[in-house]
């Protein structure tokens, strides 16, 4: 019971802030007489959400699908790269500049290239989501692996542990907190990738829906799209947070420490 009350108190402030922002937004629009073509009020957006829900749903599903598939590819490739780069000092030093170079390219700029290669539609959205989420995962996994204590490595080497033994028993578990931290970042970035690609080169998905809506000045629907994206993003973030807590609780041990 005590624990529950504590939780409520912790959450109350952030929930209060969220509600406060929406109330302020609503009030400012009403008092300032802002047209809904410029900035619709939250209530109008929610009304649009409800009204267009049957039309929005398949778009939302498409965006979620491209994002998750792209994200999954990004995670797989990111782990692979991260392990490869983190396991050897040489690979780390050699590949890092290249990786930074690639990552500093605005990923949005590669969408036309994907369209050129694969045509408009689902593929560019998936690939953009993938490529945008690879980098943070690679860097974090590589960092986790490369920062294994040298003493621990010595201990493992005197046991004649193979590279695989060390990777599996020490480096990979050790990089999990880094990995999950990067997952949370990467999944939100993946949304950026897929939505941008949909906006530019697709006739399906939330990004496309928002494009179409804005060209017909259905601004509440545009904002409804944003709300959907925010909702999906927060949802996935929350899922990975729970995941992280479960898998890497040992790295957040403050509450458990016995001094």
């Amino acid at each position, binding site marked *: 019971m005590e624990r529950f009350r504590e939780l409520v108190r912790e959450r109350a402030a952030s929930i209060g802030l969220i509600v406060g922002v929406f109330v302020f937004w609503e009030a400012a629009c009403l008092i300032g007489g802002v047209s809904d073509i410029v900035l619709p009020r939250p209530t109008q957006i929610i009304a649009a959400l409800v009204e267009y829900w049957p039309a929005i749903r398949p778009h939302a599903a498409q965006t979620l699908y491209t994002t998750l598939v792209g994200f999954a590819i990004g995670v797989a490739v990111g782990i692979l790269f991260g392990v490869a780069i983190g396991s050897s000092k040489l690979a780390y030093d050699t590949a890092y500049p290249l990786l930074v170079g690639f990552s500093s390219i605005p990923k949005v700029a590669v969408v036309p290239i994907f369209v050129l290669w694969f045509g408009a539609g689902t593929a560019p959205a998936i690939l953009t989501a993938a490529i945008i989420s690879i980098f943070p995962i690679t860097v974090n996994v590589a960092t986790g692996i490369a920062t294994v204590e040298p003493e621990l490595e010595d201990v493992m080497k005197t046991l004649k542990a193979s590279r695989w033994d060390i990777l599996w028993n*020490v480096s990979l578990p050790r990089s999990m907190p880094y990995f999950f931290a990067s997952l949370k970042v990467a999944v939100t970035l993946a949304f950026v990738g897929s939505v941008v690609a949909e906006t530019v080169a697709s006739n399906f998905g939330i990004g496309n829906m928002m494009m179409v809506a804005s060209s017909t000045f259905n601004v509440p629907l545009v904002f409804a799209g944003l709300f959907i994206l925010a909702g999906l993003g927060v949802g996935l973030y929350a899922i990975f947070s729970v995941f992280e807590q479960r898998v890497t609780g040992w790295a957040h041990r403050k509450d458990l420490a016995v001094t």
Partner: protein
Amino acid sequence: MPAAPAAVSDTPPPGAPAQETGTSRQVSNARAFIEFEKVSVRFGRGDKQVQALAETSLRIEKGDFVALVGPSGCGKSTLLKLVGDLMKPSTGHVYVGGRELGATPIRIGMAYQNPTLLPWLTIRDNVMLPLKIVPPFRAEFLAKRRTEFRDKVEALLDQVGLSGFGDKFPWQLSGGMMQRANLCRALIHEPDLLLLDEPFGALDQFTREELWQIMQELWTTKKTTVLLVTHDLREAAFLAGRICVMSARPGRILDDSAVPFARPRTIDMTYEPDFVALNQKLRGLIVAARGGTGIVRTKGH
């Protein structure tokens, strides 16, 4: 009472591979368990080259407990790493168990000052880790980890006073307890050779003395050959059967002497005149090796 520790003890630990059975080059006089043959180590190249270890020859017999003491930067840890095959000598040869390094079939355990227990594993699983990696245990790990190996770990934890802590996580333990678990991890796979690099350095004096006693007991029951690097002269004289004093830049062995005190030794013995005299002798050697007078300058830093 164990015999004078500097003497060769020919009782190999149970399960240890027979010595001198290797096919590699044998020399007429039988090789010691650990043998350094004109070994030197240099780091870097060109002008920046540093001689970490001058040409050193050293023999350590099976079952010995040898302490390496000396000022910082004298190559004690380098010597340890050479034995653990974590580093190659620039010149000379290192033989362990009668064979040149790399081909050594012996099992080695190692513990550093930093306990480096894995935070995501319980103490029991941490201690069990070598069994997962080192043959012959490796092959049976999945089959025996809940039965025989678990009992083995519990027995060892019990011996160092950690019974009942197997389910705890490392961060729930004090520094001294973590270091005990670290020792267990270094010993669980019944190593023929134990390498300790200042394992008790970060502990307070009472915890340290407690661990010396535990270490002494472990050594007397397991008869593992131990190579201990330490700054603490009392520690060296309490635990070791033989103390090698090293000098810095380039590292070399200045003095190599047996510790005459009978085992088991007690903490009280470390305050007796003979023991103090030995410490003073060692201290004198190290101070001379550092090129200082031994008088601490009290000028502010």
